[in-house]
């Protein structure tokens, strides 16, 4: 079940789960914006994510949700605004540095290392916690063996969260679709993030797979006590799992709040569910 959360207004006019109020937020976006090809793809985007919050980022197609993820992970450099990650400005950082600073993500179009085995996909993400050098690897020195064994164990443990430990030696590209999506999450987790960004984790999944995914996301949240932001079109998933929701349309935030607030927000209904409600009216 969804944890009971009371949302509290903090000085920066954003909302946080009350358990995170006393702690520094994991992420703060201030006036974030980017112009792509002359169009303001994201404009004046403000968001605060609590240390252990599960938040949703929703909006119609083309609203700029993935662009926000790309800005946070510096796939695109923002044209305006500031991103504070764990209180630190990420200005001038690249994707790799942002990951080292604590953001991991998955992708809307799955981007696995297709020709590597499942466990190697996860171990590749542990690169920065291994320290042996090339020579140790070529000569198979003791520190190579020690670190590899430790990494392998941890990788299997992470895979077991998603029940994937049996597939460890399978080529990632040959996995079924749902398993590929789950592997992407495991790979992101392997980098020890403090903020996990999931881009449509349930896309292409059937209802039972989605339900399993929901349980897994909760499990991850509980085990690692990290913040999770997810982009999702599956409203039942979003409404069930997210404590706070941010709605984007045409690159701008049109509403923020708890699932209940969002569901009853007229601006959201107009932008997002508007078509559906008018549809219903017609039917009626």
């Amino acid at each position, binding site marked *: 079940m969804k944890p009971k959360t009371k949302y509290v207004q903090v000085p920066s006019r954003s909302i946080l789960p009350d358990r995170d109020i006393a702690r520094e937020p994991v992420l703060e976006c201030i006036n974030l914006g980017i112009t792509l090809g002359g169009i303001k793809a994201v404009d004046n985007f403000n968001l605060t994510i609590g240390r252990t919050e599960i938040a949703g980022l929703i909006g119609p197609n083309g609203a700029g949700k*993935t662009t926000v993820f*790309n800005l946070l992970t510096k*796939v695109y450099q923002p044209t305006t605004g500031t991103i504070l990650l764990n209180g630190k400005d990420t200005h001038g950082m690249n994707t790799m540095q942002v990951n080292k600073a604590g953001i991991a993500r998955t*992708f*809307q179009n799955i981007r696995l290392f297709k020709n590597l085995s499942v466990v190697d996909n996860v171990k590749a993400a542990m690169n920065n916690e291994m320290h042996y050098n090339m020579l140790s690897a070529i000569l198979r020195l003791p520190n190579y063996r020690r670190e590899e064994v430790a990494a392998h164990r941890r990788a299997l443990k992470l895979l077991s969260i998603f029940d994937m430990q049996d597939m460890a030696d399978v080529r990632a590209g040959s996995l079924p679709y749902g398993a590929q999506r789950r592997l992407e999450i495991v790979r992101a987790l392997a980098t020890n993030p403090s903020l996990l960004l999931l881009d449509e984790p349930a896309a292409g999944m059937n209802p039972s797979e989605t339900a399993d995914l929901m349980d897994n996301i909760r499990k991850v949240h509980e085990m690692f006590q990290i913040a999770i932001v997810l982009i999702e079109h599956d409203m039942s998933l979003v409404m069930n799992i997210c404590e706070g929701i941010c709605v984007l349309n045409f690159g701008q935030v049109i509403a923020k709040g708890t699932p209940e607030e969002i569901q009853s927000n007229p601006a959201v209904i107009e932008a997002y569910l508007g078509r559906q409600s008018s549809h219903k009216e017609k039917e009626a």
Partner: protein
Amino acid sequence: MIFLNYFISGISLGSIYAIIALGYTMVYGIAKMLNFAHGDVIMVGAYVCFYAVARYNFNPFLGVLLAMIVCTFLGIIVERLAYKPLRQAPSLAVLITAIGVSYFLQNSALLLWSSNPKVFPSIIGRGAFKLFDGELSVSHITALTIIACLVIMVVLTLFISKTRLGKAMRACSEDKGAAQLMGINVNATISLTFAIGSGLAAIAGALLCSAYPTLMPTTGALPGIKAFTAAVFGGIGSIPGAFLGGLMLGVIEIFAKAYISSQLSDAVVFAVLIIVLLVKPAGLLGRLTQEKV
């Protein structure tokens, strides 16, 4: 005045590179492949022209025309037999096949015409225009090369931008699948591209060998690589880029020969290419595509 002389010969050499580079750039634009056999089509064109003019006493322009016809067909046949079956294959496989075709053409030429260098007769004689009291001398072939390049540039630009076939070519280079859905015959368009590129290569072959009259089976290889460099220099896939790249490469090469060192001129040319690509990673007029995430 010496400077101007060098400059004009640079433009002339660059014109030849530009004409060859067009073949590379058009094929790359539409088939996304590096056609390393293109340089050898030049050589075949030059040989056909040589035999027509020197052995069978054809009118030189008829000889060039014959060479163009032969090369056009050669281009189409090579595309059909060697490249078309590999349309879905990894680009490296296509590259190696193109190199195989290049070896094939070179060695066929070796068997047919032997490795003895032939002295190519200039297609319009060896005369020269004397300007400024003879201080500036522009040979007829130099003038012809520059004029030919300008004519080709204008005609080709008009063809690409105004005609139906030209539009089909542009559409195919943007998105083959969408072009097919719009009723464009993609295979025919690709063949057309190879045909035009190869026909131009024949002209380049005749001009090249008129200016530098030694003809061997390997004659096309180095100019081929240089023209390829020119195409990348200008932004591969871009037709104005090929002209610009070709002309600049020619001028740089002649200046490097004249003012730096004739032995190191190739090194200078390639060094300039590297510097250009570092400043403009997609060449002078190329477009950089960003991967969608």
